[in-house]
């Protein structure tokens, strides 16, 4: 199959970007979206042009590195029949001869570094602000020493599957990082290990989220719709609950 790509090209963080049109020939329907971009880049390299820069690593849908906005939806969710990362989106989801728009995540806290690559360091700093448990190392504890109810364990596990790709921010009309933050809050709030720092964690992570310049949540729901790991939208209400509870207790209690 042949496709026409309209790709965002931007030389570096400070330069102006624009959409550039490319033809990609002989695309296999079984190629992933990234393999199709590889094909384009091989072609560009042969022609002596600058290849399109894009982030990627595992190409198995679990690392969170890849991610572009395809035809106006993060990870091409609008084209994919199932929640997906860009690397797991296949060209069979597109028609032969399709015109496909490819853009980077657009949000103030995610500045474009080059072409389709954005700096998601803001997410790292949110995690550094409280997305951890302080456990003194020592011998491994006995299994079942800390019993966790099945429902809570499931919920913690579901939330912990967040790969930090940033699609939630890219899709949000407010550019809010709330689903990402809520996933970590919910993950740790469901587990006994997360309890000692629970109230302090929510305050610190929200403060960091806001200071990074992310917008506020207005409960629209675009984030959960594009999330490749299907982080539930209701984790945000868990975050709100913890935040409200933390307002009535002193820091660290």
């Amino acid at each position, binding site marked *: 199959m042949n496709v026409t790509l309209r790709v965002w090209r931007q030389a570096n963080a400070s330069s102006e970007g624009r959409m550039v049109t490319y033809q990609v020939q002989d695309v296999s329907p079984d190629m992933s979206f990234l393999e199709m971009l590889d094909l384009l880049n091989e072609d560009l390299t042969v022609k002596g042009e600058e290849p399109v820069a894009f982030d990627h690593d595992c190409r198995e849908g679990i690392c969170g590195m890849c991610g572009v906005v395809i035809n106006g939806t993060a990870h091409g969710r609008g084209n994919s029949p199932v929640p997906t990362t860009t690397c797991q989106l296949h060209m069979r989801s597109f028609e032969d001869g399709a015109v496909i728009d490819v853009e980077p995540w*657009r949000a103030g806290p995610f500045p474009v570094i080059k072409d389709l690559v954005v700096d998601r360091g803001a997410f790292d700093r949110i995690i550094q602000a409280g997305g951890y448990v302080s456990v003194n190392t020592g011998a491994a504890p006995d299994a079942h020493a800390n019993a966790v109810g099945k429902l809570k364990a499931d919920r913690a596990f579901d939330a912990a599957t967040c790969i930090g790709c940033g699609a939630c921010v890219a899709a949000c*009309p407010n550019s809010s990082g709330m689903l990402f933050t809520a996933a970590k809050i919910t993950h740790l709030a469901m587990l006994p290990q997360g309890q000692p720092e629970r109230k302090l964690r929510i305050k610190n992570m929200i403060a960091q989220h806001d200071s990074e310049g992310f917008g506020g949540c207005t409960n*629209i729901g*675009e984030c959960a719709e594009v999330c490749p790991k299907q982080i539930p939208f209701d984790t945000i*209400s868990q975050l709100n609950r913890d935040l409200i509870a933390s307002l009535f207790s002193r820091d660290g209690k």
Partner: protein
Amino acid sequence: MAVTGLIMIGFLLMHMYGNLKMFLGAEAFDHYAEWLKGDILYPLVPKGWFIWIFRAVMVASVVLHMYSAITLWKRAMDANPSAYQVKKQLAQTYSARTMRWGGIILAGLLIFHLAQFTVHSALVAGAYTTPYEMVVGEFRIWWMVLLYAIWIATVCMHVRHGFWSAFATLGANTSAKARAVLNGCAWAVALLLYIGFMIMPVAVFFGWIN
């Protein structure tokens, strides 16, 4: 945002209920209007005080609600310095998308509504002697009924997203099922408000109340 919004939804439900007293006749409605402005909480507070306490709470709610909305809007704009060339929404409802501009439009019409029925400086039909006559006189005008039909529609759309959103912000969206229930309740409240508010002006227009 959520708390002030829910206070205002509570007020809307009460206001709607009060309007329906029009169906009980002039005496009942005028007596109700009199009670609203004078007798509530008397003798706990002197006559006529409650309405001003109530108005102060409402003004504070509106101001704080708008302040929160403007803050959120500004943060959203700051967080979105460059727009997408192509953007497709997957989950957003029309009500959710129009919360901001819709809010401005309904606030503008609120000023007209207050000038008309509270301050009495924008009465279209002219002189009246009782609240009942005033309501009947104003809603005899076809475009006034139409204007209110449109305005209440914007209010109810705002309530449709606002009701669910307020509860989600306060932590009530605990599961996919809870989300469905909250959205269902939001629809129910919005429809109840629309029907409850519009049934009286329509009845006046067609002469069922006169």
